[in-house]
């Protein structure tokens, strides 16, 4: 009987307990605070957008595997992460069918057609965001919140605290760009306009701290990214050392969400520590450029998908020198 025999396989005979699934689960856990705040802030419709994108992503992957007669891969939860991230990148009032379309695009076009998990050359959620932004520019930049004069409990649930407390729907970055001042405290808590998952600095940082503690991500990419953006704005922002302006650049818009959750995506970021630092610097420079000179106030998602394309080059340029070699192997 086969089961009576001892297993024979090549060494090592022990493995660490970390699995792809664990990692994805950790990312999902880390994304929960930002999502909860998004729903609190924008109301029940935000939750529906999240549900729809996750469902669209998971179903697309499941059906694709089924159609291509490949083993089902949805069990690794990576499609769930893509779905959540996509939802966090669209406004709360976004039409559900458009959200679903974004999810299908992210998984089918960007991920599965290139070979599935580990093969996509671009962050699927951000590529889908770019796709939606080009296809539906008005809806993607509509951060308006309907104001309610005398709210009841149901209003809180349906429309969120934003509508009730009468916070402006415009994003802080747009306000800064237009020369208006912003309220740093509100920005830190997240009672501002923006996409579903990007508004609350404190919620994003909680999730990021969890990922760092669990050793899912290192700080190399996020820190160099954020620092480079700050330095860029310090030099070229035109406001000098204005803390409100600089903090507004960091905390308003998608920088923190992008730096901690999307630029750190393993598949689409450089693999060597040195490469990750270069990647962070490039991201910061591009984000600064896009925000400073671009047509819109935002620049994070384009900066990330653009730098995703540079990853193979960065990897090639930052190969490690193997132990005991005078030069890196590739130069020989």
């Amino acid at each position, binding site marked *: 009987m086969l089961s009576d*025999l*001892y*297993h*024979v*396989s*090549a*060494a*090592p*005979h*022990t*493995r*660490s307990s*970390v*699995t*792809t699934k*664990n*990692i994805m689960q950790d990312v999902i856990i880390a994304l929960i605070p930002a999502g909860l705040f998004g729903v609190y802030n924008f109301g029940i419709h935000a939750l529906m957008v999240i549900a729809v994108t996750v469902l669209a992503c998971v179903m697309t992957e499941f059906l694709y595997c089924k159609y291509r007669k490949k083993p089902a*891969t949805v069990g*690794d939860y*990576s499609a769930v992460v893509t779905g959540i991230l996509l939802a966090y990148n669209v406004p709360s009032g976004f039409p559900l069918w458009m959200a679903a379309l974004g999810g299908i695009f992210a998984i089918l076009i960007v991920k599965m057609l290139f070979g*599935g*998990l*580990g*093969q996509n050359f671009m962050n699927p959620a951000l590529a889908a965001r770019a796709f939606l932004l080009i296809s539906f520019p008005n809806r993607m930049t509509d951060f308006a919140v309907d104001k309610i004069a005398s709210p009841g409990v149901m209003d809180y649930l349906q429309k969120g605290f934003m509508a009730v407390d009468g916070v402006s729907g415009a994003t802080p970055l747009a306000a800064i760009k237009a020369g208006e001042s912003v309220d740093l405290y509100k920005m830190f808590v997240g009672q501002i306009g923006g996409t579903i998952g990007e508004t609350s600095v404190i919620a994003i940082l909680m999730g990021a701290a969890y990922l760092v503690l669990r050793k899912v991500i290192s700080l190399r990419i996020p820190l160099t990214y954020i620092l480079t953006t700050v330095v860029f704005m310090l030099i070229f922002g035109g406001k000098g050392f204005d803390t409100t302006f600089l903090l507004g650049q960091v905390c308003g818009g998608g920088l923190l969400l992008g730096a901690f959750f999307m630029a750190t995506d*393993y*598949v689409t*970021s450089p*693999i*060597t*520590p040195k490469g990750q630092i270069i990647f962070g610097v490039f991201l910061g420079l591009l984000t600064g450029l896009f925000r400073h000179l671009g047509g819109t106030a935002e620049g994070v998602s384009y900066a990330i998908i653009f730098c995703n394309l540079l990853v193979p080059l960065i990897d090639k340029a930052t*190969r*490690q*020198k*193997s*132990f*005991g*070699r005078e030069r890196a*192997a*590739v130069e*020989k």
Partner: protein
Amino acid sequence: MGRSTFLGGIHTYDGKELSMDKPTTVLLPRSDLVFPLSQHIGAPSKPVVEKGEKVLVGQKIGEAVGFVSANIISSVSGTVKEIEKRLTVQGTMVESIVIENDKEYRTVESFGVERDFTKLTKEEIRNLVKDAGIVGLGGAGFPTHVKLTPKDDSKIDYVIVNGAECEPYLTSDYRMMLEEPEKIIGGLKVILRLFENAKGIIAIEDNKPEAIKKLSELASKENRIEVHSLKTKYPQGGERQLVYAVTGRKLNSRKLPSEVGCVVDNVDTVISVYMAVAKSTPLIRRIITLSGDAITSPGNFNVAIGIEYWELLEAAGGFKDKPEKIVSGGPMMGNAMYTSNVPVTKVTSAFLAFLKDKAAVEESPCIRCGKCILACPLQLMPFELAALSNRSDEDGFVKKDGMECCGCGCCSYVCPSKRSLTQSILQTRASILAKRKKA
């Protein structure tokens, strides 16, 4: 001097608490003994006994062929029953001498005679080591007399005794350091006689404070010997990692330690050198750790080389429950076996049995997390080498330094996608080496 550690590597559950406090017990074989003629690196030895011949303890039964080869010595007295192909730990069939044990343990005449090594010439010491059939007992099995014969004796400045024992579960070297530290110092003094400019360093990982204490006390009385404590990390006991941690000198795969002025020998090897030179006792016994969650009473055993694993297993009380996997050697670099009817050789350090086979996991696609790169103690890029291996790109593999891999297993261990990186890389490496040999 080195930094007492190296870049990369992993921290894993070490399981040493199962057997580290168990004193070694001497185990006498009850059944036949099997001596494969190839249990070292280099040419297989050739049998010098015939079927039906009577042999004694300490008698040479296999003779070294050429310089890089090693003698094989009988560990029991009895009759040569068979010279035939037998299964080994590696799963290969190897020509072996089978001896029927008469349980009388009659020895050859010169066996156990005391000798004053301070009166021996270098040549005499080297010949004694060669005759005793000593090879690197840490696992590689490289003939020790070859290691002790570098091009220029005066250029060796460090003789490093490897007491790192970084493989999880293994405690045999640790027990030797606690139980027979005088022999380690003695063996090191023998080796230092060969290298007049060298300093003797006993390198021990800092998870073995008792051993460090004991050997430091003894070393303080010697002016050419000191103890170096190393940070605990796998694979600290790898030759290249050890040389770097102790001296700060870097070796690549094509360099021998002697080229950077070092000679590295395992604790058990050094004791064997002492026994061979000072006590006229060739390499016929070794210490083996029996451990793992499937073993009833884990422990350390002093066994005759040639004994079969199942006898050891009986001595340790058998299996608690049927294991999924049994391993000869450590869990990181040892060999899985499908049967325990194989003999202990000179390089066997442990017999482990696990209820669950942790390596029996489904592979999933690489997600480029980079953990293998950070874990590789040689700063290679395992995910890339494995990918090259999987598409048989041997030129690319060589170009990207795949031949530098030491097979430590760190990359496979850390991979969250549970990919068999080490296996792929070693397979390609072996195939390239085989082709080079042919050419």
